């Protein structure tokens, strides 16, 4: 489980106890869903090739063990939310996995700004911006998504608005994008 950790690498017993006593079934499910979502993000938006040898739950499982064994240092005093911390670990593991697959450290931030971002993704984002011209307050939500800022509390902080307002805008954005997809599909079906 923990491969011969050196004594100085072992986390405090208190940290290990906190992890072992946490609701790992709930956390495991949430982390697995998060890993699946991130893999889907990198394949659909970044057009990355992702091998099938690993399941999303494998990332979740490894993240928990990394924190437990001290390969990743969780400091409960600085970040009491274990799930929040492990999400970052999963994100990092998914990125590393993709990078290793491609044999190099590939940039995976900034769909609008990163030169190596797929041009198709940038085009799609700019198309969305145009489509949202009559509701300009929705565009910043998409822009932040492109920069990797997804968590409602982070979006709220970036935009200087309440989390409830972020949720509200996301709902409107979702409806808008859904309608957009349906209408385009109808047009293409009729051609």
């Amino acid at each position, binding site marked *: 489980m923990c491969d011969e950790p050196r004594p100085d690498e072992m986390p405090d017993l208190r940290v290990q106890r906190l992890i072992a006593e946490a609701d790992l079934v709930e956390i495991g499910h949430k982390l697995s869903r998060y890993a699946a979502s991130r893999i889907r993000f990198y394949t659909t938006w970044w057009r990355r090739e992702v091998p099938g040898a690993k399941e999303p739950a494998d990332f979740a499982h490894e993240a928990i063990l990394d924190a437990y064994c001290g390969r990743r240092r969780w400091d409960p005093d600085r970040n009491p939310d274990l799930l929040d911390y492990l999400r970052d670990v999963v994100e990092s593991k998914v990125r590393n996995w993709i990078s290793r697959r491609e044999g190099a450290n590939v940039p995976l931030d900034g769909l609008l700004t990163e030169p190596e971002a797929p041009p198709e993704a940038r085009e799609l984002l700019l198309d969305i911006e145009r489509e949202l011209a009559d509701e300009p307050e929705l565009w910043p939500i998409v822009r932040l998504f492109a920069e990797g800022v997804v968590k409602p509390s982070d979006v709220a902080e970036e935009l200087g608005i309440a989390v409830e307002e972020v949720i509200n805008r996301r*709902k409107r954005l979702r409806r808008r994008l859904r309608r957009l997809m349906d209408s385009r599909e109808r047009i293409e079906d009729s051609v």
Partner: protein
Amino acid sequence: MRMDDSRKRALEYLVDEMGEDAAGRDERDPVLEARFRDLKSELQGQVRRRAATESLARTREFAERLREGLRGERLKEALDRLRGTLDLSQSEVAVCFRSLQERREEDVEGMLEDLLLLEELSARSEDDDDA
């Protein structure tokens, strides 16, 4: 907006990500449920074993320092000094006190053996619980 398959997939992802329940879909997968329940149980067992091992190590250290302290000091003074410097639980200290009250200084070796045996039995019993 042109809609090839890759654009459609990217948009579908964005729509899902903006969903109300994007962060908290609640369905439980029985396979994952079992996997993470097993993991939790394994980690809990390891924590118990580590706690017992560390408790035993602390008690050994306490016993060793107690033996040294007894050479030149009165029993009570030695204990009062040592209990503050070692991270012993109340029950561990109580065991030492009881043993010391019941025995004379010349029998301290026997008392130490009792203490260590008690701790080893306790650790073994927790291992058995895990199994």
